[in-house]
Structures are given as C-alpha cells and as structure tokens.
C-alpha cells in the first residue's frame, strides 16, 4: 500500500467517525480520518478535551459522555488529519482534500461519510441581519471558546434549543426571552409514540427537566405563537411574534434561531448516493442498508449524515458500519460481523425507538420551513427572496436546478446548504406536488470552494 492508500477513509470525527475509526484500528485496518475541525469530537463533543481543563460543569453530562470516545480515538493508531477540508469524493473512492491551502489525494478501499448534521434553515424576515445567529452557533461559541452572549432572544424548537438555554442558565447568563415555536398540535401527535420511546425515558425526562429549570429560572418563556419575525436595518432591533392574533415586540440586539437539525447531504450526493424524502423528519435522508452501506459500492454513511438519530445512535452506527467495511475488505468474516455488531445494534435499537416521538414532537411548523412573507430571503448567499422564487415558478420554473438558472438561488459559496431544503419545499408547495417529486439541487464537486492555487498544488503521484 502506498502512502496515500488506506483500507478505510473516514470523513468527519464526530461520534460516528471516531467510533468507526477506533474499532477499525483495533482490527488492524489502515485508517485515515479527515476532520474539518482542529480537534476530534464533531459538533456534539466539540472541544471536549480542552474543556476538561476548564472545569465547565454547566456543559452537562450528555457532553461529558463523549470523552471516553475521544480518548479511545486518541490512543489508536489512526492517521488523524485535522483542519482538512474535503472538496471531492469520487465514486471510485478517491478523496481530495486541502490542509492549509495545500491539496492532497487519498484512496480508500472503503469510504465512510460521517459528516454529521447541520441546522435546518429557518427562513423568516430578518434572519440575515447582523446579530442573528443559529442556536448551534451559540453552542459552538460556548464549547469552543467559553464565549456567551447576554440578553439574547432564543427562537425555535428542538432539543438543542433547550440544551443551550439550559447551559446558559446554569452558567448564570441572562436570556432575554425564549420564544418556543413548537406547534401545539405536535404534543398530541407525539403522544401515540411515547410508549415506543420508554426505552429512552431517561433522555426524555432530561429534556423535560431542562425545560422546567428554564421556566423556573424566571426567564421569559413564550409559547403558542403563530408567527415570528426579526426587525432591524442592517442589525437587529427587535423580535416580533404573533400570539392569539396580536403582534408583540421584544427589543434585543442578538437572536439565536433553531429549527432542529438535518443531515449533511452534499458529500453523499456529490458521490452519487441515492436519497429519499423523509416526511417525518421533513428533510432529505441518504439511503443506507442496515450496515450503513449506501447505493454506491464501497461508500458507507454513519450517524446523522444519513438521517437524524443523535450522537449515541451515531456512535453505534459508526461501529456497525466499521464492522461491515472490515468484512467487505476481508479483515473479518461475515459471521464475526454479525457477532461483533450485536451489542451496537441493541443500543442502536433502543435509541431509534425514541425517534418517532422526538421527530414528531419537534417537527417544525410548515410556516417556519416554507415562509409566507414574500420579502423573506431564502438563499442567503445570492440574496434571493421568496418573491423571486415565486416569480420564477410563474414563468415556468419546475425544479431546483432550473431555479439556479432563473435566480442564482443556491449558487453562492454555501452551495445550497442554507437554502436547498427550503427550495425543495417551496417548489413543492407552489407546484402542489410532493418534495420528493421536486427533488434537490444536483450537487457537483468541488463540494467546498477551492482556489486555483489549491488545485495547482495537488500532487497526484
């Protein structure tokens, strides 16, 4: 095997990626892990090693649980490449990536995409103003740098919103208000799934505890709202919400938005993996079999990058995918694959049993996925509004790729990551078909912007 050839190349070092890497290394496979960040842990366990020194107990137990995974990964012989931006993955399993502006190529016998999730776009009027960030950004600032923002307003739904609010309150940081957009009907719809979720009752109770402690802290907690928007010119002046038909105003300078998380699909789609529309999670998911194998031979996907199931499930899915990849390259037998994967499958099943409940409870209202106000920006990069998309549809635009020619929507540097999901659903609504029929942007490499200098620096030898 030459220097840039590996048994397994793993993209991403969150719970799925590091679990897969550690296990594959244990079976003596040659493993390369490419991580866009500067330390392992992904977003969930971001900066977990650094935080051990800082004694920041308000980060909570679910965060601390990631430490053994990261420690085991650090003790392995895996070739860990941090700060690596992957910009091309071919279906013949060659990965191109850049580190500090220098491009490299590596070839894997098996590839694992473990790129995790991103936050769902939350297109409402004013979401591009200075001072508006995602709740995930607030979490990253807190975990990575211990930086907080006082008197911010949190808007949205989902476990991450309660988690960050709870962390802020535990650390004594004032929150101006929490505007909970969870649709009231979701509670009723979710009840029928509660028995299935009893296996994960611990997590559900923890969520309730967070919420109760947030309310008890005296933080202004607003719910049962029918609409929300952010006001300001260039930067935030206030958040306005509609409750029982009346618009009310909260003056503030900072707003953190959250409407759940969705899989990072660009990497998988660029390699040609098949996708499906997941109605319960209201997003695209990447098709995989029970071992994480995608529709492209030799490319597997583990963790939230295929469908959202959370960090504990991601670690199990990473381990199962690793065993299958080891079997594919004859390092372990198919019999051993089954035997070894049993404990991971058991833990995974318990986690998955809670998903219908969680997905249903926190399914974002259609209003926050498909905006109604025509001046709302959908594509943040190219500043394309809902009105422009509607005009294009009136002129005969039928799909996301065609919409690019009409408006440049999805053609900026983020490559549709912050508008693609909205565009699928807007077109579906306007054309009165399902999002599945509309489809998604055609994703082509490079999947991250790359300079000519970087391309020229590539040594294919």
């Amino acid at each position, binding site marked *: 095997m030459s220097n840039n050839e590996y048994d397994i190349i793993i993209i991403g070092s969150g719970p799925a990626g590091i679990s897969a890497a550690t296990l594959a290394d244990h079976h003596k496979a040659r493993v390369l892990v490419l991580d866009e960040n500067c330390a392992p842990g992904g977003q969930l366990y971001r900066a977990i090693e650094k935080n051990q020194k800082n004694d920041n107990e308000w980060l909570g137990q679910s965060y601390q649980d990631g430490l053994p995974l990261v420690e085991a990964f650090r003790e392995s012989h895996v070739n860990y490449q941090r700060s690596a931006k992957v910009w091309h993955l071919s279906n013949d399993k060659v990965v191109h990536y850049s580190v500090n502006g220098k491009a490299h190529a590596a070839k894997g016998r098996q590839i694992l995409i473990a790129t995790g999730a991103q936050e769902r776009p939350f297109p409402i009027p004013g979401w591009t103003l200075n001072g508006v960030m995602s709740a*995930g950004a607030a979490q990253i600032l807190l975990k990575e740098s211990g930086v907080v*923002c006082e008197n911010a307003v949190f808007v949205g739904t989902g476990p991450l919103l309660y988690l960050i609010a709870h962390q802020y309150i535990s650390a004594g940081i004032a929150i101006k208000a929490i505007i909970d957009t969870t649709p009231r009907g979701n509670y009723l719809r979710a009840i029928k799934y509660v028995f299935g979720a009893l296996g994960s009752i611990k997590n559900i109770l923890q969520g309730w505890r967070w919420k109760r402690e947030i309310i008890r802290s005296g933080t202004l907690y607003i719910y049962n709202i029918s609409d929300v928007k952010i006001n300001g010119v260039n930067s935030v002046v206030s958040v306005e919400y509609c409750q029982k038909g009346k618009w009310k105003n909260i003056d503030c300078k900072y707003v953190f938005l959250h409407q759940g998380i969705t899989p990072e699909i660009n990497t998988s789609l660029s390699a040609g993996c098949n996708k499906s529309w997941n109605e319960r999670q209201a997003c695209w998911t990447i098709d995989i079999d029970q071992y994480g194998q995608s529709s492209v031979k030799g490319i597997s996907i583990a963790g939230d990058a295929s469908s959202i199931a959370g960090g504990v499930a991601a670690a199990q899915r990473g381990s199962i995918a690793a065993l299958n990849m080891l079997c594919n390259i004859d390092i372990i037998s198919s019999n051993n694959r089954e035997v070894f994967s049993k404990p991971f499958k058991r833990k995974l099943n318990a986690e998955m049993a809670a998903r219908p409940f969680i997905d249903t409870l926190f399914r974002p209202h259609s209003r926050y996925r498909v905006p109604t106000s025509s001046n709302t920006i959908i594509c943040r990069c190219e500043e394309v509004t809902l009105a422009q998309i509607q005009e294009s549809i009136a002129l005969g635009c039928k799909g996301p790729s065609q919409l690019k020619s009409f408006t440049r929507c999805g053609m900026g540097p*983020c490559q549709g990551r912050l508008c693609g999901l909205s565009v699928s659903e807007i077109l579906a609504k306007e054309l009165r078909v399902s999002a599945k029929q509309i489809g998604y942007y055609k994703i082509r490499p490079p999947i991250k912007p790359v300079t000519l200098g970087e391309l020229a620096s590539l040594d294919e030898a």
Partner: protein
Amino acid sequence: MFRSINNNQSELITIYFEGKALRVQKDLNVATALLEAGISNFRETTIKNENRGPYCMMGVCFDCLINIDGMDNQQSCMVKVSDGMKINRQITRNTSQDEQ
C-alpha cells in the same frame, strides 16, 4: 454583547481589524475574536450591499467571509487568529469599474 466566561484564558496576542489593534486570546478563531471585541459586521453582501456577519460558526453558511491578510473570502469561523494578523471587512468591488 459577547464575552468570555472561561476561567482559563489563553495568552493574548495582537490582531488588527480595519487597522485598529485588538488584544485577543490566541486560541480563538477569527470570527469569535471579532465577536468578543464587539464586531459583528464582517462584510458587505455582493448583491444588495447589506451588512452580514457570522451565522452558523461551523463552516456551513459562508456568511462570516472576511479579508484576512489581503485575501478575500476567508471563512473566519474556521481560521485561528495569529499574532499580527490583518483583518479587513470584505467590501463588494464593482468589477466593471475595476476593468476600466
């Protein structure tokens, strides 16, 4: 207002934003360092010339693009600060005028 609550502050270094010296912790990324210094206006958008700053902080949204040491389009949430780093707001240039 963004502020640090870490009890272990790292060593301070100097960076320059629009020519003004800022003392920042050396283990921060550029976006975090600027936010902590009270700066949230990182660039002017290309179409509507509006102010824009960081949104996702994880390399997905590309809204935190900024000019670092003379180079435009740097993802400030993904780049660590370094001593003497010169950071400037990214301004939209009118290409047709540049060509004349």
